[in-house]
């Protein structure tokens, strides 16, 4: 694939940045499944990202588990954690769910610091960057890039499959009209919790990968702004859109850097302006807007010209 070929032309630093993009994309897809497709707003996915990252870090640091095993484990742990959190969250809607998840995100750094023995407290845990396995002639950056890309493709394919199928329709139905879905026989409670769990699992895997690629975890990396950035990512990328996750990931990785290049004095002001302008121009996110535009273009092509002129208001 093109991305793989490009791997050989990009510098290690760029590969590192794009690996971050892949990782964010996985996290964003997780959040999007919950918020975009299922309508449950979460401002707390940074918490699951942190849990995934720390699961990996602790397993490597305390028990010398090879990092390969830590990634699915992190996913599993978050699946359970997300599901458990999803249960009481079933009753919460909109604002209240947002607040609950917000509280979760805020509590995480303090809790991480408290369990110092496991988490290394505010000092964090330092890991080593893994070398490419099986003697492949790749730099660590290239290997991690490949690994993240591979996991991304697999998880995206899984998600696409899920969302296109029966489960996907149930999930979306719950978002659009919970009562109707319930009366049609969808087990709303179960689906909502499972979706929470699945969404958390995705974000947890992303967190695990980030721990491996950055080779360091500390409570400061998982503050509330992380969760808010994820929300920004899915809204800008496009809610309820799988490709939106990648677009959003590109945004949250690169736009802050561009903002810094534009203005050294007040870079975040520029970032804020970017956010607002994007939302004005594309209220449904990049993917959403593209979809609308594509739809309109296709419709115009399908209609014969005279009829189109007449039917247009």
């Amino acid at each position, binding site marked *: *694939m*093109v*991305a793989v070929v*490009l791997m050989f*032309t*990009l*510098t*290690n*630093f*760029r590969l*590192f*940045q*794009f690996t*971050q*993009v892949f990782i964010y994309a996985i996290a964003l897809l997780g959040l999007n499944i919950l918020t975009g497709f299922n309508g449950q707003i979460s401002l707390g996915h940074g918490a699951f990202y942190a849990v995934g990252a720390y699961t990996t870090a602790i397993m490597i640091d305390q028990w010398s588990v090879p990092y390969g095993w830590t990634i699915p484990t992190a996913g599993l742990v978050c699946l359970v954690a997300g599901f458990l959190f999803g249960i009481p969250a079933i009753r919460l809607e909109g604002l209240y769910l947002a607040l609950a998840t917000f509280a979760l995100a805020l509590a995480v750094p*303090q809790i991480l*610091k408290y369990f110092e023995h496991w988490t290394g*407290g*505010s*000092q*964090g845990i*330092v890991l*080593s960057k893994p070398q490419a396995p099986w003697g492949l002639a790749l730099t660590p950056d290239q290997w991690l890039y490949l690994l993240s890309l591979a996991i991304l493709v697999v998880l*995206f394919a899984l998600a*696409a499959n899920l969302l296109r199928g029966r489960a996907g329709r149930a999930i979306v139905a719950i978002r659009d009209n919970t009562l109707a879905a319930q009366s049609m026989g969808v087990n709303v409670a179960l689906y909502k919790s499972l979706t929470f769990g699945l969404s958390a699992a995705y974000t947890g895997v992303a967190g695990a990968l*980030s721990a491996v690629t*950055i*080779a*360091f975890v*500390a*409570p*400061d*990396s998982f*503050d509330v*702004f992380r969760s808010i950035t994820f929300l920004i990512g899915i809204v800008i990328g496009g809610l309820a859109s*799988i*490709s939106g996750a*990648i*677009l959003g990931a*590109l945004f949250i990785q690169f736009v802050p850097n561009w903002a*810094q290049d534009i203005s050294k004095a007040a*870079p*975040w002001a520029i970032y804020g302006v970017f956010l607002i302008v994007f939302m004005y121009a594309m209220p449904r996110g990049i993917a959403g807007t*593209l979809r609308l535009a594509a739809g309109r273009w296709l419709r115009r092509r399908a209609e014969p010209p005279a009829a189109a002129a007449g039917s247009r208001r």
Partner: protein
Amino acid sequence: MLRRGFLLTLLLAFGLAATPAPAVAQTPGVTKTEIKVGNTNPYSGPASAYGTIGKAIGAYFKKVNDEGGINGRKINYVTYDDGYSPPKTVEMVRKLVEQDQVAVLFQTLGTPTNSAIHKYMNQQKVPHLFVATGATKWNDPKNFPWTMGWQPNYQTEGRIYATYILKNLPDAKIGILYQNDDYGKDYRKGLLDGLGDAAKKMVVLEQTYEVTDPTIDSQIVNLKNSGANIFYNVTIPKFAVQAIKKAHDIGWKPTHFLNNVSSSLGTVLKPAGLDASKGLITALYQKEITDPQWKNDKGYLEWVAWMKKYYPDGALDDQANAYGYLVAQTLVHVLKQCGNDLSRANIIKQAASIKDLSLPLLLPGIKINTSATDYAPIEQEQLAKFDGERWVLFGELYDAGKK
């Protein structure tokens, strides 16, 4: 449609960003006319108050450049914002090392942020000089030969207080207030280590706080009620003011040890009340720029003149601007010492061979010294007591290097 859109997006992104790998020069970051110095600082986010250090450094380098540079080369100072977030620090530092190809990474700020790049800098063999944190781990030339701290570390300061307490206040009952992160914990460890076995008996209560807490009044109340007659105050300026004021307001008058980070007369003692601050004890290594005793001191006047010309936006009562000035001077000294060999290997070698460097804003008697086994440039501090008007130095110059 999905798969295509997905791939198309990736392709576009890569197309935009693909850059050929730059060849690594023999002396990276150095040309006949310039030396590239890299830095990350928190210009935004929770620690943004420290961002002024990064700016002060830039202002000092500008002065040096205006006066001809270092051995004919100007300093090209490249600094990025990391928002005090370790992953961002990693990214920005990799950019500095791999893309911008700096000769040296200088004064990166923060303990977790520096921890994140500690291994990387040593793997890449790039000088990681004079990091802006007081943690102890930067003085480890055996395992991390490319990383060096600068300021007296927090544990040393804690131990200085402990020594004083053991000698002069034998029936001490100590209450500790510290910030719940490695800065606070390091200071705490220093004191406890210095007290040794006596710690268990002497420490009656410990309280912590988070940077996000609005007030620490509750903690002060608890400390007073624990019967402590010594208050070990490990707080940043914002909370130090509250602590001093609240203790005074509720009538608690312990022997009050204030950590060096918050010893500024202008930003802490004045807002807290000069009267309420009487009797405070701290350890100093810099000349306190808001202290009237240095009003006519040559070093101070030079600093003020520099601030007015090169950093007019900077506050004249913010000790951080004196700190930035001092570290920048230290780096310039090292780079000058390199002569014409500005390879990364020589830069770190020269940094580890500083002999008795005294700088105008350091307290008289304090000298910077480093060697291949001593990566702690400043190890001397002096106790001072506040008399309502200024910090009066007393006792002898404590030298951790001699220990």
